[in-house]
């Protein structure tokens, strides 16, 4: 079978799978399983003895199951959900995703509804593939949502690693009314959660313009504030600025964060080049985090730092949005085990290389990841 044919077959199978996907799913809880088993046993006893009152009791158990199914359906039906995601979150941090629920039913309130992110794309043939390494999405709970009413709830998310995690939709579930079964309903609600790499590694600021060498990633000289020149003035806070530079009095007066700017802050311009080849996954992530930390340091110092990571290239420009864009690139960058060495985008002397496989050539500064001692 040719590749084209097999792809067509997969698409067809996917369509069938989507068609057959149940609009609702029912999961049995332990009390529900006991109830079903008890109903079965009572049914046998009823058939055996022919005791008419047992038929009545059997009917009540079946009625309880039927009522449970009906009410859980009513609890999930007619619910609209909107999701409010943060622009991005930093790896290792906890954030909250907010959901706005609207009950469009005119009479039926919604009781005990849980909201959680759908872990697999609705149209994925292998749902488990998409869940690997995803952030831990908690679930939100709505005790009561009145008929026609709205409410906001939130779920706590813990993101351990960077990445761009597509969100495919939500799963609404409820155990209402008796807690015997969990009924689930999926809602397609595309989105993405961007998790930036950690940028809190202690790195020495890069040296450019002929002061080449191999830099320590940490150590006594890792502080970022020693070479910044004279105080120049105040400006608005931008993402990546060192919070220690906040000018509290101005911040309090203007109601927005104001930062101190130094003479050196606007003087340096260089490229941070991330070598996307690393022998191990741990070193890959370390390299990305060093690059992110360098970007943070650069922003704090007021340097104009560009970024090259794989095929992505962001020229050195100033401003918070530019820094956020750089973090977005680092969140999405794919690290590989093998590949060619990166080329400096400009004069190698004005480029800083972050690499996990050694070498450095004519780079302005090299940040070796994984090396115990500087070379």
């Amino acid at each position, binding site marked *: 079978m040719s590749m084209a044919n097999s792809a067509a077959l997969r698409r067809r199978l996917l369509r069938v799978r989507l068609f057959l996907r149940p609009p609702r799913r029912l999961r049995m809880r*332990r*009390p529900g399983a*006991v109830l079903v088993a*008890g109903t079965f046993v*009572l049914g046998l006893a*009823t*058939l*055996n*003895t*022919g*005791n*008419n*009152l*047992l*038929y*009545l*009791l*059997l*009917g*009540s*158990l*079946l*009625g*309880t199951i*039927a*009522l449970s199914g*009906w*009410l859980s359906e009513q609890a999930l039906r007619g619910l609209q959900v909107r999701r409010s995601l943060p622009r991005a979150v930093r790896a290792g941090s906890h954030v909250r995703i907010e959901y*706005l629920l609207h009950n*469009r039913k*005119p*009479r039926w309130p919604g*009781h*005990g509804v849980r909201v959680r992110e759908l872990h697999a794309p609705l149209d994925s043939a292998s749902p488990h593939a998409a869940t690997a390494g995803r952030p831990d999405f908690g679930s939100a*709970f709505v*005790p*009561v949502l*009145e008929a*026609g*009413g*709205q*409410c906001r709830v939130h779920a706590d998310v813990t993101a351990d690693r960077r990445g761009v995690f597509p969100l495919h939709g939500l799963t609404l579930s409820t*155990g*209402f*009314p*008796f*807690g015997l079964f969990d009924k689930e309903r999926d809602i397609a609600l595309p989105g993405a959660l961007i998790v930036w790499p950690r940028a809190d590694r202690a790195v020495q600021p890069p040296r450019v313009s002929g002061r080449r060498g191999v830099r320590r990633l940490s150590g006594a000289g890792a502080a970022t504030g020693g070479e910044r020149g004279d105080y120049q003035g105040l400006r608005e806070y931008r993402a990546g600025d060192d919070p220690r530079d906040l000018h509290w009095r101005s911040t309090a007066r203007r109601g927005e964060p104001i930062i101190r700017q130094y003479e050196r802050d606007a003087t340096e311009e260089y490229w941070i080049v991330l070598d996307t080849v690393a022998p191990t996954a741990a070193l890959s992530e370390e390299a990305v985090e060093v690059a992110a930390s360098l970007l943070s340091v650069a922003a704090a110092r007021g340097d104009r730092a560009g970024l090259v990571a794989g095929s992505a290239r962001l020229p050195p420009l100033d401003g918070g949005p530019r820094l956020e864009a750089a973090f977005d690139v680092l969140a999405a960058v794919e690290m590989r085990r093998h590949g060619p060495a990166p080329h400096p985008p400009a004069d190698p002397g004005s480029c800083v290389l972050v690499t996990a496989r050694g070498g450095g050539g004519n780079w302005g500064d090299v940040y070796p990841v994984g090396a115990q001692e500087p070379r």
Partner: protein
Amino acid sequence: MSDLHRRLGALLGLIALTAFVSGAGLDAPAVVPAGIALLLAVFFQPGQRLAERVEPLWQIAAIGLALRATFHAVSPGGDPVLPMVDLLLLLLCAESLRKRDGTGDARHFALTFALLIASAAYRPGPLFGVIFIAYVVCATVVLVTGHLAREAHSYHVAAPPPQRAFLLRVAALSSVVLAVSAVVFLFFPRLSEGWAARPTPPVARAVVGFSDRVSLGSHGTRIEANPEIVMRIEFPGGPPRSLRGLHWRGRSYNRFDGVNWSRVEHGMPRVSEAQAWPGGIVEQVVYARPLAEANVLFGLHPVIDVTAISRIRPVRLRSGDFVYTGESDPAYRVRSRTGMPAPEQLRAVEREHTPDIIANLQLPAVTARMMRLADSLRTSAPTMYDHVVAVERYLKTQFDYTLDLPSTRREATLDHFLFVRRAGHCEYFSTAMAILLRAGGVATRNVNGFLGGEWNEFGQYLTVTQNNAHSWVEVFFPGYGWVTFDPTPPGAAATIAAGAGSLGRLRMMLDGMNHRWGKWILDYDLGSQTQLLQRLAQPFSDQDRTARAAAGRNGVSRWPLLMAVALAVLLLLSVRRHRSRTAPSAVSRAYLTVRRAWQRAGYPPAEALPPLAFAASVTGAPGADAVRRVVELYTAVRFGSAQLSAAEHSELRAAAAAARRAARQSARGSVVPG
């Protein structure tokens, strides 16, 4: 929510206990203490420390009762049912007095339901139906409140406070459970053959009343009345014109030894009175209780045939008596002839002593004066029929009826009855007539059964009690078979009576309920199911259409009509659904009514003026504050996605009412707007 849930849980236990008591009574020793403990649990919950101290005691008691139940189960002849119930009740009380989590809740529900199952085994009365409804309603509320409280606890959010409207709605939803129960009960096929079940023990054995023996030996006391019901009889084709004096024939006896009557099966003439007798057919549906003495089926003489309704097998004996085999309560259909041969026809019959009738002429040792009495009664009668009537009239008119038994055994003889005491109960009368006729050469036999009954207007059936037990005589007329004669003085034996007075009517009503409960609930079976389905299908059957066409009514099938009604209902529901979807919320409705009220007072309509501008336009007018508040709340909900609390809803309603009132006053001219 948690406290309410706990209290309702204890109440659920009480309801289940009541259901058990309604069937089994107070037999289990733990019933009364359990009732007190459950009642206590409704109003009181032990604190954490007390609960922890009591917990080991529960466990020790439970282990003790479990060992006791095991001992009863393994010991030969032991009955573990009541010890098991005691254990069940102990566990239920412990669970009700504990603080319950999710597992405990399920356990508690399982225990109460087990108690309900246990009570079903005792064939409880109609009270069980009421308790069952209460149980379902309470269980629904308990399960829902418990679930919500647990979920809120697990998510560390406050459980919604129990609102009356919510609880009422949940209670109303239990009607779904009841409806499913009813459907399962009515339509679940009754295929039980009881392959592993113990037969249902007859719960009411008659002790006094009908007996499968006739004996004159009893003496020394008085026969006590026994109002225990033995059977209820329905007449599907309508009751006979006269219910008085209906003889519900049971068993016959043809051999008398001077004290006891017995049966000699050989030598019985095989006759079929039903074919020779005139008159129509009366159908009787009999719901009887099993009798201790014999598995006898009763019916009006002469019986054409008997068909079983319950799981019994009727057997017709050579004597014409009907007995049955099977363990269930007998319910059966009897067809009998309504008339009897005319006196002229019977007068034409001559005595005929065929070999198979000889056994019915057997005589015990009779005294000379008894023979003389028999001869004197015979000589005056020209025909056999007149002879029989003369003996019957003699006993009816010359003797008294009494339930007092003779004082000594010597007095408990037929001779003493006929010539000294001249009073006795029905067995003396029937025996005297049978023996006097046999002494005169007439084949007779003694018959036991019931006479009359009590007509229940509510249930349209005849109730026969042990008080109606009776004995009479059958005389053999060749060509016509056995003909009934009753020598007991009229008025002495129980006849047809109706419940009189409010107490009697209440008794009748309760008995009617009991009968329906037994007929439609306890004894509902495949036959009843088929009957119900046929009745449901009847309006749509061809036969019914033909019958209605023959009766001059429209013979059109009812299916299209039914479908049209169903469509109309669906349409109505759809329209209501659409309306409710497009209907504004309560807040919008309040705002719009205020706008309409002010529009009538001369202000611009809602389409022409936005809400805030409208609120500004009424500034200074009476009611402006109320209008402003309504608009504030409306805009907060409509555009700010806010949710109103219960207090704000109340405030909205009050403000809207005040704003409308002000608008009306303004429209009447008492207030000049703006």
